[in-house]
């Protein structure tokens, strides 16, 4: 069964520190992976997707098929990065539904 695991419920760092939000998935095929973010009082929105290989707001994520991971990284955290982050998996052919992890709350302190 497809599954997304985010092992940390809360990640607390100081401004300027590096950040890594972990995401592991289980899927036998070639998945599409995403990171979604929800800032306080805002709707859930796409942060980045692995196929784009882009950096958004300083965040990057690399798909590691060997370790079945898609960790989100940022070298220097900012206070405005504080939010709820969800890793999500889309299985091609499965009506394109997204399967989400439990989420990690990132708190960046001044």
């Amino acid at each position: 069964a497809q599954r997304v695991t985010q092992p940390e419920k809360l990640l607390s760092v100081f401004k300027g520190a590096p950040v890594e939000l972990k995401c592991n998935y289980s899927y036998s095929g070639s998945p599409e992976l995403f990171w979604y973010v929800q800032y306080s009082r805002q709707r859930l929105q796409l942060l980045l997707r692995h196929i784009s290989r882009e950096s958004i707001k300083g965040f990057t994520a690399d798909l590691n098929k060997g370790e079945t991971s898609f960790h989100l990284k940022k070298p220097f955290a900012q206070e405005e990065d504080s939010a709820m982050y969800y890793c999500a998996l889309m299985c091609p052919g499965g009506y394109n539904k997204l399967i989400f992890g439990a989420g990690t709350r990132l708190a960046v302190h001044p």
Partner: protein
Amino acid sequence: DVKVTQSSRYLVKRTGEKVFLECVQDMDHENMFWYRQDPGLGLRLIYFSYDVKMKEKGDIPEGYSVSREKKERFSLILESASTNQTSMYLCASKLGSSGNTIYFGEGSWLTVV
């Protein structure tokens, strides 16, 4: 800009009541989804629809039903609300092809007392 609108932001209902949550999207998307969002559990898919009058069960369909009579509107129905259905409900929509972005509504906070 894609707009997914959930008409009710906050609802309080009594146990046993029938509850309707409405969602409308304005971008002619084929796919629409209902998730519930709970702390520590993330987002769990309740139902989704890939076309008008078509629906598929998600991971937690029990106690819910859906209706998609028009392409732009996807309704979630709680036939007899229970306290364990107190949650944040998120509607989302997506264009048909794989890889396109899913757009979310702002959410509907439902409290069942």
